[in-house]
C-alpha cells in the first residue's frame, strides 16, 4: 500500500478529531456566554424596576394659616411649618377618614419623607401658598411593590397591605392617581431604612474616593517597584525572595489585607473607621502585587533591541528607562493597573473589617468622610427584608457593573491611544 493511501485512510479520522476539538472550544465559549446571559437577565430583570418609583397624586391645600407661613422666603417660618400635618390632613380629606385606626393606614401609603417633599415644592413654587394643588408625592415602598406588581398574572403582591388600604388603592388606580416616575432618589441619596428613600450615591462616592486613593498610591509605587526589580535590582537570593513574596501576596485572600489594615491603620496609626482613606490604603496593599506583576511583565515585553539601541548611542540607564522602556511598557502597565483597580472596586471583605460597612446617609465629600463602598452597600441591601431592597440590590449591582465597564472601556481606550508599534 502506498503512503498516500495510508494517509487518506486516516484522514477522515483526523478530520473528525479536529472537528471535535473545535466543538469543545465552541461549547466552552457557549457555556460561558450562557452563564453571562443568565446572570445579566436575572439582575436586569430584577433590578430595572428600581429605577422608577410609584408616586401618589394628592390634593393639597397650601393653607397659609394652617402652615403659619406669610413669606416663603423666610426659612425660619418654612422650617417651623407643619408640612407633615398638611400631608396627613390632605390624606384624611382625600380618603374621608373618620376612624383613628384608618388614619395610620392612610398615612403609611406615602413615604415618611412626604412633609419635606411638600416643603421643597412650596420653596420651588412660592405662588402656591394659599391655593389648592394636586401634587405627586412619593409612595411608600409597600405601595410601590404593589403597584409595580399590579399587572402580574398571578395577582399583585400585597405583602403587609390591609384590606382597607387595598380599597383606597383601587380608588386611586381608578382615578389615575398612581404613577411611576424616574427614581431620582436612587442616584441622589445615601442609605436609608426606607427603600423609597435609599440611594446609591453615598456608596458610589465612597467607592470612587477609595479607588482614587488606591490609584494614586498603588500605580506609582507599583510601577516604581516594577522598574527597580526589572531594571536595577541585581539577581541574587534577596531579590529572589522578594519576587517570590510578591507573587505570594497576589494570592493572599483579601480578608487578610483587611485584618492587616485594621491592625496597622486603625490600631497602630489610630485612624478613624469607615474612611475611604483607610479603605484606599488597604486596597492599595491588595492591588500592589497585581500591578507590580503586570508592570514587570510589560517591561519584560519591551524588546531588548530597543534597550540596546538606546544604550549603544550612550543613553544612561535612566534615559533608557524613561525614554524607551516606560513609554513602550505603559499600555501594559495601565491595563494591569486598571485590572487591579477593577478588582479593588469589587472587593468587600477587607472593607468590612475596617468599618466601611457603616450605615451612611450623608454623601461623603472627601477621603476623610465616613463612607461605604458599592459592593458593601450591595451586601447590606441584599440582607434587608423589604421586598423593594431586592430590587435596589440588583440596581446597585448594575451600577457597579456599569462602573466596571466604564473602567475597562477606559483601559481599552488608553491602550489604543498609547500603544506604539515596533
Amino acid at each position, binding site marked *: 500500500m502506498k503512503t498516500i493511501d495510508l494517509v487518506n485512510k486516516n484522514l477522515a479520522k483526523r478530520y473528525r478529531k479536529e472537528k471535535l476539538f473545535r466543538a469543545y472550544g465552541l461549547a466552552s465559549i457557549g457555556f460561558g456566554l450562557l452563564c453571562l446571559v443568565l446572570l445579566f437577565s436575572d439582575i436586569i430583570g430584577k433590578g430595572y424596576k428600581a429605577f422608577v418609583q410609584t408616586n401618589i397624586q394628592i390634593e393639597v391645600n397650601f393653607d397659609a394659616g394652617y402652615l403659619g407661613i406669610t413669606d416663603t422666603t423666610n426659612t425660619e417660618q418654612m422650617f417651623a411649618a407643619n408640612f407633615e400635618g398638611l400631608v396627613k390632613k390632605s390624606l384624611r380629606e382625600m380618603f374621608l377618614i373618620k376612624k383613628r385606626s384608618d388614619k395610620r393606614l392612610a398615612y403609611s401609603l406615602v413615604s415618611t419623607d412626604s412633609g419635606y417633599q411638600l416643603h421643597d415644592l412650596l420653596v420651588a413654587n412660592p405662588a402656591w401658598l394659599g391655593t389648592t394643588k394636586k401634587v405627586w408625592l412619593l409612595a411608600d415602598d409597600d405601595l410601590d411593590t404593589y403597584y409595580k406588581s399590579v399587572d402580574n398574572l398571578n395577582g399583585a403582591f400585597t405583602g403587609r397591605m390591609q384590606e382597607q388600604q387595598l380599597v383606597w388603592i383601587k380608588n386611586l388606580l381608578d382615578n389615575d392617581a398612581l404613577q411611576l416616575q424616574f427614581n431620582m432618589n436612587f442616584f441622589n441619596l445615601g442609605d436609608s431604612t426606607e427603600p423609597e428613600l435609599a440611594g446609591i450615591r453615598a456608596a458610589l462616592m465612597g467607592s470612587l474616593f477609595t479607588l482614587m486613593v488606591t490609584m494614586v498610591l498603588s500605580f506609582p509605587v507599583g510601577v516604581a517597584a516594577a522598574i527597580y526589580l526589572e531594571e536595577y535590582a541585581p539577581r541574587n537570593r534577596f531579590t529572589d525572595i522578594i519576587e517570590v513574596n510578591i507573587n505570594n501576596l497576589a494570592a493572599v485572600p483579601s480578608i487578610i489585607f483587611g485584618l492587616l489594615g485594621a491592625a496597622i491603620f486603625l490600631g497602630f496609626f489610630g485612624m478613624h473607621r469607615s474612611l475611604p482613606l483607610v479603605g484606599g490604603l488597604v486596597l492599595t496593599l491588595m492591588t500592589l502585587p497585581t500591578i507590580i506583576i503586570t508592570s514587570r511583565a510589560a517591561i519584560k515585553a519591551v524588546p531588548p*533591541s530597543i*534597550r540596546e539601541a538606546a544604550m549603544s*548611542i*550612550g543613553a544612561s540607564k535612566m*534615559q533608557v528607562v524613561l*525614554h524607551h522602556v516606560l513609554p*513602550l511598557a505603559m499600555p501594559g502597565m495601565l491595563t494591569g493597573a486598571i485590572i487591579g483597580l477593577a478588582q479593588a472596586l469589587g472587593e468587600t471583605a477587607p472593607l468590612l473589617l475596617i468599618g466601611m460597612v457603616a450605615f451612611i446617609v450623608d454623601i461623603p465629600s472627601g477621603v476623610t468622610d465616613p463612607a461605604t463602598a458599592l459592593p458593601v452597600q450591595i451586601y447590606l441591601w441584599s440582607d434587608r427584608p423589604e421586598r423593594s431592597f431586592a430590587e435596589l440590590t440588583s440596581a446597585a449591582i448594575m451600577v457597579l457593573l456599569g462602573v466596571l465597564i466604564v473602567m475597562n472601556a477606559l483601559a481599552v481606550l488608553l491602550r489604543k491611544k498609547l500603544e506604539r508599534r*515596533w
Partner: protein
Amino acid sequence: MTNEIVYDATVGRPLLDDAKMSMRGVNVFYADKQAIHSVDLDIGKNQVIALIGPSGCGKSTFLRSLNRMNDTIDICRVEGHLMLEGQDIYDPKLDVVPLRARVGMVFQKPNPFPKSIYDNVAYGPRIHGLASRRIDLDEIVESSLQKAGLWNEVKDRLHAPGTGLSGGQQQRLCIARTIAVSPEVILMDEPCSALDPIATAKVEELIAELSQNITIAIVTHSMQQAARVSERTAYFHMGHLVEVNDTEKVFTNPEHPLTEAYITGRFG
C-alpha cells in the same frame, strides 16, 4: 586535519603600529564558562576589520566587549586590557556613557526606536546635548542621513515613523542614528544578515564611505562580505583568535589550517 587543533599564539599580524583600539590578553567569561581566551588584537585607525568564525566562536561577544555592551549581562566578566587610544575602557573610573558615544554600535536586526525618522536620528545628539538650537539639530539630522545615504529617500517624510521603512532603510537609519553622535569607532554585529542583497550592497557601500574617517569592526557570517568590505580579517574559533591578516591574504592564502577550513567550507 581539523582534529589536530592547536591554539598557540594567533598567527598572522594581530598587532599594528597605528592602532585605534588595542586589546591585550582579553578573556571573557560567562559565569564559569570562558568565551574568549587571551585575545591580542589591534584595530587600525580608520580601517575596517572583519571578525569571522563559526557560530558560537565568540566573535560577537568580543565585539560587544569593545564598548562594554556586555556590562548589561550580570554573569559576563571581562579581563585584560582593552584600550581606546591608550585609555583603558574597563577602567572603573571611566564613564561608560561617553565611551558609547565614541564607540557606537549597529545590530543584527534593525532596531529603530518607535519614533519618527527625525527623532531617531536626533535622539543621540539630544541626550548628549550636541545641539543647542533647533537649526543645529536639523543640520546634524540632515548630514547624518546624508552620510547614511538615506536623505534622498526620507527627506519628505522625516516625521513618519522610522519603523515604517523597509528593512534595509531601517538599518541605514540605525547607522545614521549612530553616526549622528560622531563616533570614532562603529561596531557592527552582522548588520546585513536580515537584509536582501540590494540593501546589503547599499550598507556595504556605506561602510566603505564611513571608513574614510571612522574605524569599523564588523562581525559577519558572510565570507564574501568580509572579503568585500574589510581591510583586515580576524578569524575566531572556539573563543580563540586563530588568525589575523590582511583580508586579501586570508581569502587567497590563509596561514592557519583552521582559517582555511572555515573559509573554504570544510568544517565537518
